[in-house]
Structure formats: structure tokens, C-alpha cells
């Protein structure tokens, strides 16, 4: 018989300085409960930090809130955390953001948040539209035999 643990959490955070740390810590606690390794957790928290900073710096939302949802599962094969970071801001063009990025390893001072998210997570999906807000869905997966 398969034993599966499931955890879910929702947070609404104000867009204030360093609030991304609160989001990252909440996700890290959930991941630890599910037995994820510290290296995977560190990568996930760095990605969440970048997603929250992007929302805070660029969303231009009126309600000054970041909406987070975490869903985690673990079984004998490993664990998986899904993270949704949403804002109700102006939206953006992900392709334009990707086009602006430098090549990997090339020094580029700003605009690397999305690239870091994609590098640190196993899945990244962006839902955004002009004036309709943005949701970044990311997933971190750890297989026990990795």
C-alpha cells in the first residue's frame, strides 16, 4: 500500500520590504515536513524569493498584496511541491522578458529573476495578461533515488 502525505497552505502577504523571506520560510517549512532535501529546498526558496520580488517591484498592483499557494505531496518515491505566486497587477510579456535576458553566465545586472526561477525549479509556467495580473506556477520535484 502506498503512503502519501499531502500538505497545502495559502498566504496573502503585503508587499513590504523583505516579505519574500516570509514566503520562502513558509514554503521551506512545508517542504521539510515532506522530507525534501535541504539543497532542493534552498533552490525552491530562491525561486520563490525572485517571484515575490518581481511581483513587488513590477506588478504595479493596487491592492499591494502577493497571493501564494503551496501544495506538497510525498510518498516512497519522493516529494513534490507546487507553488503559485500571484498578483493582481498589470501583467507582463514573458517572451519579451526572456528576450531581454543575457546568455547564461553572461554578466547582466538586472532582469534575471525569471531566469533564476527557471534554473532553480523543475517546472515554471506563467499566466499573465495585460491588466489581469500574473500567476507564476512553479514545481520542485525530488525523487528518492536521485
Amino acid at each position: 500500500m502506498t503512503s502519501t502525505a499531502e500538505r497545502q497552505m495559502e498566504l496573502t502577504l503585503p508587499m513590504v520590504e523583505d516579505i519574500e523571506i516570509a514566503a520562502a520560510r513558509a514554503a521551506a517549512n512545508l517542504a521539510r515536513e515532506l522530507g525534501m532535501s535541504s539543497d532542493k529546498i534552498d533552490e525552491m526558496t530562491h525561486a520563490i524569493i525572485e517571484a515575490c520580488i518581481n511581483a513587488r517591484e513590477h506588478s504595479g498592483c493596487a491592492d499591494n498584496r502577493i497571493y501564494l499557494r503551496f501544495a506538497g505531496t510525498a510518498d516512497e518515491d519522493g516529494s513534490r511541491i507546487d507553488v503559485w505566486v500571484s498578483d493582481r497587477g498589470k501583467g507582463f510579456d514573458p517572451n519579451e522578458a526572456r528576450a531581454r535576458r543575457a546568455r547564461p553566465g553572461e554578466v547582466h545586472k538586472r532582469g534575471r529573476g525569471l531566469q533564476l526561477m527557471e534554473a532553480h525549479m523543475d517546472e515554471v509556467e506563467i499566466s499573465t495578461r495585460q491588466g489581469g495580473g500574473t500567476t507564476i506556477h512553479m514545481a520542485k520535484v525530488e525523487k528518492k533515488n536521485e
Partner: protein
Amino acid sequence: MSEELKVAVDRRPNGAILYTKGYINNVGGEEIANRAYELMDQGAKTLLLILRETKIVNSIGISILIEIIEKMMEKEGAIAFCCLTPVILKTFHIMGLANYAKIFENEDAAVKELGLGN
């Protein structure tokens, strides 16, 4: 909430070692930059940043570290980093820092190679 970064400086004859503790974000990056620029103005040509007690960096903090590296390169000096967590090391590679700054695993080896002994 506030995640203040602390920087301790150990001045050496040929440069300095900077020990960071805490989150390197925009504020933390500026704190490191202020200390680094003071040292450069005093003539330091080699700075070693020990990040043993820093577990989180963000892209804004790293952009400030890149500015410090650029300023030191203008002065024909060198910046190096040591004791990075695996995720910070990976982030430094993605952001390009690793192309312009030496990265060491071990503080003693870094001090020896950079000539920062007392």
C-alpha cells in the same frame, strides 16, 4: 520584517576579508558595497568575501555585487568569494559572477592564494 545584513571586516596588509551574515538583498548589497568602496579608497586591491553565514541572496543583491566587481576591475584589483552554499554558487554561475571573480570552497586556501595572510 527586516533581514539586516552584517558585515565584519578583517583588514590585511594586501587587502581585506569581509565576513557577511544574513540576507544579501538590495540593502545588504549596498552595505557590502559601502564597505568595499571604503576599502578600495584606502588602497585595498584584493577583497575576499566570506559568505559562510549568508544563506540567501537575491538577484538585486547580486547585481550590486557585480557593480563592486566592475569597480574593482577598473582599479585593476580582484574580488573573490568563499564558502558559498550550493544554491548561491549555482546562482553566481547563472548571473555571470563566476566569470569575473574567483570562487573558493575553503577560506584558508583562498587567503593563501590571494596573498591575504597577516
